[in-house]
């Protein structure tokens, strides 16, 4: 069995977002980058499937610039077998469908039994890749998965929907699964593991190596980001302290009714 996991490089959740270049870009200079948190659950799940089945190959892939290499190596240190970096050199401002097309080409080249991604990247907050990638491949997908089990060529997945609803699906492999936080507890990649992981096989591919035409992809980008802005500032609120609880509660309830008009 072969499992392909895709990870994305995203800013650390602590990051304060700074706009630059007349609000046309996001400053990346001081930003600490991490593996998108949901992708760690995807990697962990792949490794657990490998451990249970005793012999799957886990490929850790990403589309991005050369700095993604160290994040892929972190995934290899967790237990992945081979790295795959698809270089984004020359293709600016790809939207998610373009990225899905590139990842789909990589999937076709690798021919895995299962593709695991995170349910959502915490930078664009899109939740696009799992459904788009599966559609381009003609496979089923289940996104926001809390539980996954695989038996032979079939899988069962539980998806978290709204209001505590859980949808349970059964489907044949290959398929695309998007990992949610409750899927597992990702292991920690310790330093010695990272040193060893640097020696694991690692492929770097260009978009053209996957049989895709960069100019053609660029010409079909459908979602353009024109500019960014900061969220509107909130003006300072009224904080009550040092009075009796009932007094403070009465004041806030009055404000909620008469000023904010929300209750």
């Amino acid at each position, binding site marked *: 069995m072969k499992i392909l996991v895709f990870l994305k490089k995203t800013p650390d959740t602590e990051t304060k977002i700074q706009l630059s270049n007349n609000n046309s870009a996001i400053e990346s200079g001081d930003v600490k980058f991490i593996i998108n948190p949901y992708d760690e659950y995807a990697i962990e799940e792949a490794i657990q499937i490998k451990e249970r089945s005793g012999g799957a190959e886990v490929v850790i892939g990403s589309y991005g610039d050369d700095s993604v290499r160290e994040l892929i190596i972190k995934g290899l240190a967790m237990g992945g077998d081979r790295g795959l970096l698809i270089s984004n050199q020359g293709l600016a401002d790809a939207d998610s469908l373009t990225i899905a097309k590139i990842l789909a080409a990589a999937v076709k080249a690798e021919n895995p039994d299962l593709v695991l991604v995170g349910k959502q990247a915490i930078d664009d907050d899109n*939740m696009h890749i799992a459904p788009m990638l599966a559609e381009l491949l003609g496979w089923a997908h289940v996104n926001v998965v809390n539980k996954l089990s695989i038996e032979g060529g079939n899988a069962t997945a539980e998806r978290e929907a709204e209001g505590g609803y859980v949808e349970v699906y059964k489907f044949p492999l290959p398929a695309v699964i998007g990992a949610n936080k409750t899927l597992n507890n990702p292991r920690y990649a310790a330093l010695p593991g990272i040193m060893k992981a640097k020696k694991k096989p690692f492929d770097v591919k260009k978009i053209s190596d996957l049989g895709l035409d960069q100019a053609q992809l660029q010409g079909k980008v459908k979602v353009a980001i024109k500019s960014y802005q900061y969220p509107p500032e909130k003006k300072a609120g009224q904080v009550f302290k040092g009075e009796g609880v009932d007094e403070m509660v009465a004041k806030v309830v009055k404000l909620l009714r008469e000023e904010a008009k929300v209750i």
Partner: protein
Amino acid sequence: MKVLVFVEQRENKLKKSSHEALATARKLAGSASDVAALVVGGSVEGLTSEIKGYGADTVYSVSGNAFHHYNVLNYAAALEQAIKTFAPKLVLAMATPMGRDLLPRLAARFDAGMATDLVDIKNENGTISGTKPMYSGKCFAQLQLQNAELHFASLRPNVFKGDSTGDGNAQLTKLDVSPVTGKLETVEIRKGKSEKADLTEASVIVSGGRALGSADAFSILHEFADTLGATVGASRAAVDAGFAPHDMQVGQTGKTVNPNLYFAAGISGSIQHMAGMRTSKVIVAVNTDPEAPIFKIANYGIVGDLFKVVPAMTKKIKELRG
């Protein structure tokens, strides 16, 4: 501009947030004749009259056993058929778990643009643009949809007005769609414990943090929530400690919420928590620490013990409501 709205139902009830998608579509389209709605389910034709008030002249329905529960491949087949029939320029849905699962799949099928979770959308002479929160609301991006004849967009719940326009004819057309077999089978849909609105759609949320100290202590928040008709949420610290299930988590690795009122009890206001709730219209914080960062974004705050403040507030609101 022709706009097709995917309206969402569960258990034969139209989602309240679908009114927002219909009303927005009506505005973008300019006339009711340019708006169509698609409703999919076991037997959903009865929902037509409700849709009528929101300015759609056409309602497509796809029904049958295979469509009773959500299944992305069957629902995608239904939406594909409706798109081919109506030939819209824009397909609109709400950015709910269902909308966010279904639309990107169709966008890939039609090689179309996909803008998700918009808080603003415009049609300027046929060019569609929108505003989308990114980095959990730490910034907003201005998006423009281009290079395709068809685009998809989903709207963040509770942002757009869901007012009825009253001018739709809502003529029902049943579409005949074959379900997809052998690829994805819905085994079951397990119902959640609560009848409450999902956090992402709730208009009032009462959240508790680490300070609650136990799962039992959450009962004071549930009681408070019941008096307000609110949904209960939690910080990650409360979830990780086992006081609340993960589907209640608000924040960067939980849910992004946008209620009219967000009440935070015993939550410090970490950057990751605020990322998920900072766009709430009114924020109320209760915390024993006057320096807690949550007070910086709160409209109203009480420095005090939540175990005293929350029951007092429940009592006060019960009194007012008689």
